[in-house]
């Protein structure tokens, strides 16, 4: 009897500490967010660092986002052909391709790719600066590390992701086009006309809204884990992993939330 109680106590303590840590972390992230807003509004902005980050986060992600988009468009065309040909609805392929790409696949896949690429790099870079006291050095040089490191990255993320996704949209549709025209004998101009007539502003717009939100998540989470890195190289590795995992999950979660918001509109 006594033994059982002890086990219960242990289990509840464990659960309690997990719950506590969970809310503690949420509070911590929220505080980081408030700091971000405060520094954004009141402190110096570094245009040069911002442009550097546009290049790093946006421009340098073009190849991987482009590749992801083109293959996704191609696969979509093939797969929907398999399905639609069973009830002779092949002509709907362009519609399915453009809708899936703009609303879902381009933003989500670009988000996940950039999270793996730029988000990880941000966490690693800032984490290294943290454990090697470079962030402390910044403070002694009268520089606010937040404005110097976080603001340029997060703003660059919010701005570059929509551009990446817009390009991803075009390349994805092109992927579907290539398959349909070259492999499935579609008429090229009919395909494009179909796509153009079918797609609505809201399809593209909702995708770009998602992209901006994902851009924020990726860079913000990367900065958060970077700033909270402890220990040495091992700590940096851990921050990098955490940052990629949490931003990927958050991207999928927010994707659902934003989709359902636009669904109601």
């Amino acid at each position, binding site marked *: 009897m006594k033994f059982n109680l002890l086990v219960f106590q242990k289990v509840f303590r464990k659960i309690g500490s997990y719950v506590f840590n969970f809310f503690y972390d949420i509070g911590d992230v929220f505080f980081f967010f408030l700091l971000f807003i405060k520094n954004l509004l009141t402190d110096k902005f570094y245009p040069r660092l911002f442009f550097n980050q546009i290049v790093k986060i946006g421009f340098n992600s073009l190849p991987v986002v482009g590749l992801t988009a083109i293959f996704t468009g191609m696969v979509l065309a093939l797969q929907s052909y398999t399905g639609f040909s069973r009830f002779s609805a092949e002509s709907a392929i362009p519609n399915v391709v453009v809708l899936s790409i703009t609303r879902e696949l381009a933003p989500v896949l670009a988000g996940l790719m950039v999270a793996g690429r730029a988000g990880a790099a941000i966490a690693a870079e800032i984490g290294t600066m943290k454990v090697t*006291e*470079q962030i402390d050095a910044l403070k*002694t040089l009268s520089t606010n590390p937040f404005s110097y490191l976080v603001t340029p990255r997060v703003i660059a993320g919010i701005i570059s992701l929509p551009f990446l996704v817009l390009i991803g949209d075009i390349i994805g549709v092109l992927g579907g086009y290539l398959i349909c025209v070259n492999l499935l004998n579609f008429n090229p101009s009919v395909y494009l006309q179909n796509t153009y007539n079918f797609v609505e502003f809201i399809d593209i717009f909702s995708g770009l809204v998602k992209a901006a939100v994902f851009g924020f998540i990726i860079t913000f989470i990367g900065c958060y884990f970077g700033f909270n890195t402890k220990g040495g190289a091992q700590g940096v590795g851990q921050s990098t992993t955490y940052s990629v995992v949490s931003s990927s999950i958050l991207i999928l979660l927010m994707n659902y939330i934003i989709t359902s918001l636009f669904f109601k509109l």
Partner: protein
Amino acid sequence: MRKLKIEIKKLSKNFEKRFVLKDLDLNIYESESLSIIGESGSGKSVLARCITGLTEFEKGKILTDDSKDVMRMSSKSLNEHISKFGILFQNSALLDSLSVEENLKFTDKNINLSEILNEINLTKKILKKFPSEISVGDQKRVGLARAILKEPEILILDEPTTGLDPLISNQINILIKNIVEKKKITAVTITHDMTSVNEYGEKVAFLRSGKIEWYGDAKKIYDTKNKNLKNFIDGAL
């Protein structure tokens, strides 16, 4: 006539439940060169981080010359407090995304670097390199230059010579000596290199078990009766 610059009262600092500093008292006086010595892991770097306001601590007070407490400052005055210091960090902490030149010109773009390069015995060739491309000794020199260039009220040097060969250690010691004596700056040097103490230490504080176990004139350190300090000096020499 000795003007108090920083007054540390009953400072305690724990990591998790293990204490590193416990009820530590120490005064730092203006224009004096203080050496803090102690074994590896005794908390010297932690003490420096507390003084500069880079690390929070649980108990005690660190008072500045305008009798403000570092732990109870608004974030604005804390930032001002931190920027009073020029710090040579234990591993230099140069910004590794910037070239040496950009590191040195970080706070003032228009500064002329030839004088400082002369002072730290480096040539212009190093300016275009990145911190990861230069030797640890040169990193320390650049870190020292960065700390001095901002004309700080207080200079903190965390183990400026550790990990360097005796020749370069000596050069760096002489360099620091010149700077400390010429600029009459308040300087705190953390070290276990007794030659550093001999070269430019005026006062010495010996840190052990979280407290300052011995404090006094650098010249009198070899006459000490304190056994732990004696052992430390013997070991260090």
